């Protein structure tokens, strides 16, 4: 055997050096924590005293697809501040990391309205001053308002969307009109449910509990039990659960299921592949809308905070919104973006008629008692087995 083990070891040592160099940093596109001056978390809310250019780079904790070059490069060119994106795979992961000390590592984090409360409880973000965002008043209020809590703004909405009722026209002959249609006997073995607190929203809508939006996030134990029992009635209809967009796309594409709650990007991917899947505009959409945008880390330095405001202003400007929307497929929050978008883009994101796209959907927020909601969700999943 002519294989030289020494050669193998030498190669391995070289690889070890390479791994130590490139892999042990926090992000693959630049190392984290390279702020010029790391602050101690003191807020300087109303007037910004920092010098944005002194902030070498902004570390942005975001989702894949939401920090494209088309967005970051023009910003860097115009303001001289580099943006370093890092990607999270789940909100829970993000909050946990921040709570464990990553607030020093990231300057901004993309937060959905439904994680604002947990983030505040974990003490990882600081408020944003809307007066410093030029176009704030012009943005869709239904997207920006859910980010306000107790008189303060905690995240700046940069995109929003709706989680529609998806169905296959081969399985449902008539367009569904309500979440209650999931319980139809014709859907036996055709439904897939999201392994998420959304199970509760679906049940709540089916029971008519979403008439008062605020109540939806403050359900009593009695109401939660009612929802659980209602969801368990779906037992015969549910074929399998889905937990990622890829799961759902595969299920529809291979005709394994015919109805579910889904995501817009899933629908767009399926349409592109020619699958006969449509979304239904139903009256009782319930808490199926979402909004998200950057929040400030509590440990952001004054210089980087100034840079962050510049970034946020750029992000919600029509040009920035266009770049974000084109890459992520999500709907912009700035109405002035519409003329810049192509017809297909407008239709795909619902910008051609945002009010209709939103429908009666309520933007999701965090429940007041996450433990109880989580427990109910577990019971539903367990009971469907």
């Amino acid at each position, binding site marked *: 055997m002519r294989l030289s083990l020494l050669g193998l070891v030498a190669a391995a040592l070289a690889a070890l050096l390479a791994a130590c160099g490139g892999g042990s940093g926090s992000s693959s596109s630049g190392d984290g924590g390279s702020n010029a001056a790391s602050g101690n978390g003191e807020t300087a809310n109303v007037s910004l005293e920092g010098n944005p250019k002194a902030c070498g780079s902004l570390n942005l904790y975001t989702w894949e697809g939401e920090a494209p070059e088309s967005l970051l490069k023009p910003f860097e060119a115009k303001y001289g501040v580099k943006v370093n994106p890092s990607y999270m795979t789940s909100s829970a992961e993000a909050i946990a990391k921040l709570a464990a000390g990553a607030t020093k590592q990231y300057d901004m984090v993309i937060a959905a309205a439904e994680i604002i409360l947990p983030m505040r409880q974990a003490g990882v973000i600081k408020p944003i001053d809307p007066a410093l965002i030029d176009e704030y008043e012009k943005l869709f209020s239904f997207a920006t308002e859910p980010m306000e809590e107790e008189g303060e703004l905690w995240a700046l909405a940069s995109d929003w969307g709706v989680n529609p009722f998806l169905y296959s026209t081969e399985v449902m002959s008539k367009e569904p009109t309500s979440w209650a249609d999931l319980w139809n006997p014709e859907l036996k073995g055709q439904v897939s449910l999201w392994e998420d607190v959304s199970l509760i929203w679906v049940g709540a809508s089916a029971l008519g509990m979403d008439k008062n939006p605020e109540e939806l996030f403050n359900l009593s134990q009695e109401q939660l039990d009612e929802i659980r029992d209602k969801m368990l009635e779906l037992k015969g209809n549910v074929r399998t659960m889905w937990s990622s*967009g890829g799961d759902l796309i595969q299920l529809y594409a291979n005709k394994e299921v015919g109805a579910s709650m889904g995501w817009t990007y899933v629908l767009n991917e399926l349409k592109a592949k020619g699958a006969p899947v449509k979304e239904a505009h139903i009256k009782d959409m319930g808490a199926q809308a979402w909004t998200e945008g950057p929040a400030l880390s509590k440990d952001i330095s004054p210089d980087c905070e100034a840079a962050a405001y510049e970034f946020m202003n750029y992000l919600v400007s029509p040009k920035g919104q266009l770049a974000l929307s084109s890459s992520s497929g999500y709907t912009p929050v700035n109405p002035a973006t519409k003329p810049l978008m192509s017809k297909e883009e407008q239709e795909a994101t619902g910008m051609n008629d945002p009010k209709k796209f939103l429908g009666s959907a309520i933007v999701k927020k965090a429940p007041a008692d996450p433990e109880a909601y989580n427990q109910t969700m577990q019971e539903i999943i367990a009971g469907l087995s």
Partner: protein
Amino acid sequence: MRARLGSLGVGVGIGLILLFLYIPAVIVAVYSLNKGAVMSWPPELLSFHWYSKAFANEAMMEGLKNSVIVALVSVSIAVLLGVPAGLGVDRFQFFGKTAFQRLLMLPFLMPGLISGLTLLTVILDFQLELSLMTVIIAHATMLIAIVVIQMAVVLDRWDRSLELAAQDLGANEIRTFFYVTWPNIRAAIVGASLLGIAISLDETARTAFVVGESDTLPIVVLSSLRRTLTPEINAIGTLVLVISLVGVIIWSKFGAADLARE
């Protein structure tokens, strides 16, 4: 006549078993050549564009590179730790020796989830970074077992008196090792290394827990499955399979026959 039928029965049985083993590989390979992204019947052949897309896919190529790095480094660590340990286990008797051996084997015997989970709790509690290093640590810990097993197998039947003879003739530790011990364990180390590399390249479960920004190939495949339909993963998988097949054929031509006969 009965013998004929018996032989036929055996042939059919073995054929069915081989079919069972090969079905997924064949299907994945066939659909890597599918025109569309939806993998349904009948497949629309023949298109190589998933292969070109796989090569153009930066994340996938990065993942492949990282997988190779992780495999080589983990195996090296496992060898550096496991070979001396194997030699020691062979030479010494002490209280708790079997326990120590079993301890080294544990990460390989436990489900990947457990190894990944326990390592993750350390990382979470001490607020450490997830990175390629954490993946390497997880893999190396698992692969030590393979090296130790191989060492035990080889040393078991090797005559220790050869070493003593060399030392009686005046050789010191280092010379004895290089001229007497090494040639005999070399084959075991190479075998364990190759097996270790193969295992590390495919490792998914424990890697998923301790992976950071830099993904390995199996994690890239997992992320792809979670995002959307893409036969690019079929392409890369088939490619790895074919390369392994070729590798095995080459290896068998150049002297693995004696290992099989062992």
